[in-house]
């Protein structure tokens, strides 16, 4: 599992490759912690190479939702596989996370001011 973080000034791009299991979700936790301390307000998560997400991985995302909401941070996931979309949907996370189909759509969403 690899996580690459890049920043182009407007938004912060997090690319996750591989499986997000219990041990690798700790890395994701650290990455998200860094974005908070760096005051990132627009975060895109590239899930095109994300194959599997465990409950630990889901928990990591979920634990930052409130904080992101408080800071008015936009978190947008794109390229999510159907299988993982189903997982989000059963859990109810699809109502809380913004999912985009592609990087371009995600960028468009990010540039819209928060309602």
């Amino acid at each position, binding site marked *: 599992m690899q996580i690459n973080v890049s920043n182009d000034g407007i938004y912060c791009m997090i690319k996750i490759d591989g499986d997000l299991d219990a041990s690798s979700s700790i890395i994701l*936790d650290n990455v998200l912690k860094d974005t908070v301390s760096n005051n990132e307000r627009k975060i895109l998560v590239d899930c095109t190479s994300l194959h599997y997400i465990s*409950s*630990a991985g889901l*928990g990591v995302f*979920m634990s930052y*939702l409130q904080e992101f909401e408080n800071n008015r941070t936009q978190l947008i996931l794109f390229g999510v596989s159907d299988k993982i979309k189903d997982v989000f949907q*059963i859990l*109810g996370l699809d109502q*809380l996370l913004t999912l985009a189909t592609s990087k371009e759509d995600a960028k468009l969403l990010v540039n819209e001011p928060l309602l």
Partner: protein
Amino acid sequence: MLSRRNAIRIFISVNIVSWLVLLAVNLVNLFDIGQESYLGVPTYVKGILFNIFLVFTFFYYRIKLEESNDTDFIELLSQVFVTGFFTVVISLFVQLVVLVAADQSAQVIEQLSVIFYHVNIGLVTVLLTKTLFVWKQMVLYKKSRKLQYAWNAFEFGLLTSLLLNFFPLQPFDPAFLVTFVLVSLGGLILSGNLKWVAYLNFNQKWQAILLILLTSAFLAYFGQLLFSYSTNRVVMQSLTHSAFILIIFSFVSIYCLFSVLVILFNIPTSSVFEKKMKEIINFQQLTHSLQAKRNFSQIYEVLLDSTSSAVLANAAWLEVFNESGQEVQTFLSKNISKEEADKVNELLPETSAIKTILVKPLLQNLKLGSALTDSAALPYKSILVVPLLAHDMQIGSLALVRNVSNGFDKESTEMVNTFVRLAGLAIENLHLVANALENERYQEELKIARQVQDRLIPSHLPGHPHFQMCAYSQGANTVGGDYYDVYDLDKERRAVIIGDVSGKGTSAAFNMAQLKGVFQSLVEMDLSPDLFLTFANSSLSRCLDKSSFITATYFILNAENQTVQYARAGHCPTLYFCSQTKEVRFLQDQGMGLGIIRNERYITHVQLNQFQYKPEDIIVLYTDGITEARNATGEEFGYERLSAFLSAHSLLTVQEIVASFIEELYAFCGTKHLNDDYTFLLIKFI
């Protein structure tokens, strides 16, 4: 057998007695010169007395010095020096006495001379014998069997030569000559054993030379004294006529000479030997680190110190990477700062072992040359970089630099390589030990979690006139807990809950205990399922940890109305079989897991559902351990198989359905041991 101490006492007393008797006899003999002796003591008696004296001195020192396994050679040499010193002093003192008494009568002078002579015999014998046996210890240092036999033969030869004392022989008699030459030759050959010299350090070598030279001076003094007696007509036994004494004298002197020469010639190379000894000590230290379970930093320190001193490096540094291999986690250096080390690192070509995780084992002698010295003002001209390997991976690298070009030869490189490999082994060992401990702790933890979980799930499902229920739940070893429970609200209504707890090991068990507690307390309040979940979410939000959540579905089965009311908190969709239409479908509804929205807005995400059931209808409650169970090729069991199974087996009793489902699940997976907890709860309406 005599004890050692007693033997020594006997020897001393016999020695003294025989010496005194010999003295007495010779004094008496003095009166006999030129006169007819009425005592008529024959020569051989004198020979016996003399021999007794020699033999017992011999054995006294032999025993005394036998048991000391002393390898402190300077100490031994000092003992010899001290003995020599005292014997010479006493001898000089006696000589003084004789001089002082020069104005006495000739007779008195002669008597004094005899006494003086005997004293000297005693002193010389003592000095020579003591020195002989101290030399024995040096010769026999690190001895082999052959050497031991050779020495024993030499001693035997010495003792045999004592027989000659019985005969008034001249030095050039054949018997005398042959014995003297043979045994001395033996002594000469034995004098080649000087291994102890190599084990002295530089200072000790100079001390040894001094002590031996002084001892040689004492021996020379006694030597000239003895030869002066050979012309003295008064003296009855000249020690120069004693092969025994002469042989010992020659052996001891030759050994002195050889020792001094060998020490002198060893001095230039002693530094090399000491370096080798230091390297061996370093190897031993490293090996101890292997056995004594030290921590990593001690291993790193020993590695850095031993390698830099082994190759005379001017500076050295060790970098250890963190787990992902991206950054330097530990940096240790000697005689160089991190900034300087980084500068050197930058100047190395791209293929350096530091920058890649390649298998190239050794990168040696990169000439840093002027590029480095000009730009960084650092004096290093050659560098040796060795990757630190453990578990077939590079976990770090060691760099050594020297101020001279071509500063690392093949031998140094090999030495460093060996040290690094040893250190790698020690590190692997520590990792394995740490892993084993952690693993054990983990297994214990899981065992406890399993036991806790087993107590939280109902041991059996109570029967009911209107609902037939059967459940099968099995825990996995590694992941979080499943939960289900039932509660009869009244005669007609039964509450059922199924839940899946996230997390692993003990934290999952705790979460499940919290869910059970929440269920047990809320269920009696007879809330509608959506309210139940809302309150459950509220209390769980306060006690679940930050990134944990729970999925659940809460049902109220009502036999009176033949209805099922339920709300789904993010759990797997319930499977429903309609006996009338024979249709199998998953109930669709909106839901949100517990602990995800930890405020009052949760209720907006909860949906209350209700449906009517007919007899023979079936609902299946399950956890994702069922649908996500994988077979050998990684294919998941999935929802389709689940619904297909129910379709095909709907007419059986609940127990039969559950049993055959589990069989099919195991058949699909190819094993009875699944990776995740799984629960299968079947409810058939009557």
